[in-house]
């Protein structure tokens, strides 16, 4: 087909994807004076149009049920009308397939900023032992880098994006450069007391929300609506915090609605551009660059590499090892909620805080694996408080209490008296969990789609049962009663549906050599010196820590390395 070159311009670096990895890369590279082309498969973001931060349900005639009551039929926005997801579990015209016997759900955001516009903003450093898991227990693989390699970049990332937290000295949760965290809420104080009795550390949460002004960003004003996007950019998003400021330098050109099909190579072991579909015109276009950084999300980057076939790379770009798409991981999720009579009738107050729990529980038993029936560990996230009533909030209560004054009184009395726990644990990479190109299906742009295969092993199942026992103990320890599964839809059956924690990583793993990995420790392709992958694809393991902060840090480190190598003439 006709391929239209965009212009004669050759960019220093082409960045594909505008989430945490791509946003960081764009900012770091432009700050060094490099010219960047940033491609995003969705449209430009307008925070003042997209972010419904300060709205209440009654501001809309549909109250959040959406046009025609779409949310009642499971056809509303994935996390509710008010969330800033700009994507979903399924995108029209952009399917994926799942192998027989597997379950996998793939969440994609198509907008500048990607999933960082709405994500949970949990920002946990990996621990020193997280980089050497194979050495510890013989499972999975060691990373080619250590905590000492990444630590300076955790410092930089935390200082730049802004993370709240406290200095605790807990090995599983290394301390960082923190803003002052907000104080615990009442239900969290009770949870902490219960955890104290069980020997489980319960410490101030670490979220990418600022409590003092930095870089012209206002401190958090505690409206509690981070998931809707933050108009004052007090909560980190790569769009507002990295890409928009980078655009002001004049060094970045953003190509939105640009669906990358493949990375182009020059036949001499290097890449020299990308081929993309302009979604507005359906035309194929080419952009040329001296280096290419993929940051399209782990699976999408794997897809681009696998679809970039040439004489030189018949199995896909940088895929001599055959490992592109392999060792796909998600986080192990399990949730349980409890009813706490001590909270009943409490004088109400504003429990929104900085938009998430103010405390969390990092993993505590890292030295007691001989007493556990599963490897690695998990952290616990907390829910509770007087949340904003929304469509669907009281359907369960209505079904329990019938109707009338009795139902009304019960809903009133129980409001804010429940707590929820979500375990987020480490999965061991396995050979049955991977993604590949489905040779029988293309999307509406003509690009072959991904097919997913996934299996939880006994390691993950046993860990989920440990979560269940632990949450039960915490709930009962505070005089509460277990209510049942939290997030029932996504975490039914006793363990989360693979993919639904939206921590999918791996598939383009880093390692020491071209035989056992795709990338080196700088996320540079072993086989292609001017190609990098800075999303979660490079992850060798998926520790219980939510991946975004590590993506920020690894991307920053990769860009420092790339610019230095380009200066030296090595790339």
């Amino acid at each position, binding site marked *: 087909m006709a391929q239209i070159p965009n212009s004669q311009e050759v960019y220093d670096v082409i960045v594909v994807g505008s989430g945490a990895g791509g946003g960081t890369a764009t900012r770091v590279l432009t700050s060094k004076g490099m010219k960047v082309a940033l491609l995003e498969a969705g449209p430009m973001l307008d925070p003042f149009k997209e972010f419904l931060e300060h709205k209440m349900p009654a501001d809309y005639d549909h109250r959040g049920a959406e046009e025609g009551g779409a949310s009642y039929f499971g056809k509303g926005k994935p996390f509710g009308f008010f969330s800033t997801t700009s994507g979903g579990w399924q995108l029209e015209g952009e399917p994926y397939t799942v192998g027989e016997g597997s379950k996998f759900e793939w969440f994609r955001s198509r907008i500048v900023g990607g999933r960082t516009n709405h994500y949970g903003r949990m920002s946990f450093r990996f621990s020193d032992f997280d980089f050497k898991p194979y050495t510890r227990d013989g499972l999975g693989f060691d990373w080619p880098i250590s905590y000492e390699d990444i630590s300076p970049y955790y410092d930089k990332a935390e200082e730049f994006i802004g993370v709240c937290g406290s200095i605790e000295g807990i090995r599983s949760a290394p301390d960082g450069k923190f803003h002052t965290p907000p104080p615990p809420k009442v239900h969290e104080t*009770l949870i902490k007391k219960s955890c104290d009795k069980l020997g489980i550390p319960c410490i101030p949460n670490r979220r990418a929300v600022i409590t003092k002004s930095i870089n012209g960003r206002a*401190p958090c004003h505690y409206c509690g609506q981070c998931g809707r996007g933050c108009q004052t950019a007090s909560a980190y998003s790569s769009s507002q915090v990295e890409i928009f400021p980078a655009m002001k330098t004049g060094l970045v050109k953003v190509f939105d609605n640009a669906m990358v099909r493949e990375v182009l190579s020059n036949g001499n072991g290097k890449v020299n551009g990308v081929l993309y579909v302009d979604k507005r015109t359906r035309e194929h276009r080419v952009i040329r660059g001296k280096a290419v950084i993929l940051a399209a999300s782990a699976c999408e980057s794997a897809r681009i590499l696998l679809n970039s076939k040439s004489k030189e790379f018949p199995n896909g770009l940088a895929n001599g090892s055959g490992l592109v798409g392999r060792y796909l991981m998600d986080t192990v999720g399990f949730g349980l909620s409890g009813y706490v009579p001590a909270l009943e009738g409490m004088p109400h107050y504003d429990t929104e805080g900085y938009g998430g729990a103010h405390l969390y529980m990092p993993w505590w038993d890292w030295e007691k694996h001989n007493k556990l029936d599963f490897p690695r560990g998990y952290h616990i996230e907390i829910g509770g408080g007087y949340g904003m009533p929304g469509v669907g909030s*009281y359907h369960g209560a209505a079904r329990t209490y019938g109707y009338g004054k009795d139902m009304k009184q019960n809903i009133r009395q129980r409001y804010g008296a429940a707590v929820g726990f979500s375990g987020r644990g480490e999965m061991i990479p396995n050979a049955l969990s991977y993604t590949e190109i489905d040779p029988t299906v293309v999307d509406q742009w003509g690009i072959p789609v991904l097919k997913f295969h996934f299996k939880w092993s006994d390691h993950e199942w046993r860990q989920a049962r440990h979560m269940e026992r632990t949450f039960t103990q915490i709930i009962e320890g505070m005089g509460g009663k277990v209510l049942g599964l939290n997030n029932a839809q996504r975490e039914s059956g006793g363990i989360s549906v693979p993919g639904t924690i939206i921590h999918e990583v791996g598939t383009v793993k880093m390692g020491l050599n071209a035989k056992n990995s795709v990338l080196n420790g700088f996320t540079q392709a072993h086989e292609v010196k001017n190609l990098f992958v800075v999303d979660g694809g490079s992850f060798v393991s998926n520790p219980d820590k939510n991946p975004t902060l590590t993506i920020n840090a690894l991307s920053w480190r990769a860009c420092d390395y790339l610019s230095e190598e380009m200066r030296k003439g090595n790339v």
Partner: protein
Amino acid sequence: MSNLLNIAPASPDGRPGRRELIKAVAFAVVATGGLVEDVEAAQHVHAEAVSAQKATGIYTAKEMSAAEFKTLGKLAELIVPADDVSGSALDAGAPAFIDLLCSQNKQLATTYHGGLAWLDAEMNRKFSKSFVNATVEQQTAMLDLLVEADKSERARMDESAVVKKSDFRDFSDYTFKQPHPQAAGAKFFDWVRKMTVDAFYTSPIGIKDLGFMGNGAYSKYEVPKQSLDYAMKRSPFA
């Protein structure tokens, strides 16, 4: 300076002043080094969002007949009645909410047209009166029956429609659980109940009833000692 906010294109939905106020938050912060002065500006942003709420005017039904709309109103008053804390779901605009969504969705409209007709037919059969013309005792007797039917139908679906004998040999050993006689009405009742409850608790009346105090703007987040003391005293940690 506040480059993040300047670069964003203007809000196209015609909310004059809103963007400027949000900008003011950031400017105030920069000007004062992030101290308290920004709060007032932040609060303006929220105050403006709230004042933009539509005033409750007279709603003209788009989908329902006058009789249907009236029945929805009666149901709303019974499902979430007024009490000494707050008004009813009728006060909170439940019939208008339901009518609007029905006018946008044929499937939903059919559920309501059919369900309301079923309700009046059943009331006529039992009490020789339409729902709105029946006594409160008759109306609640019907709703009680529908609550029971809903629970029974839910249990039936939860388990399985078929029960297998332990010494299963052939299909004659299966017994099919019978649907509740009011099963069709129960489905409609579940719809009208959940949408009425939603309309109530998402309204300013419902928000006030529950005492939701969030989505505000403060320079500092504090937890009242009074609340903490209350819960601690009642907890095992007292």
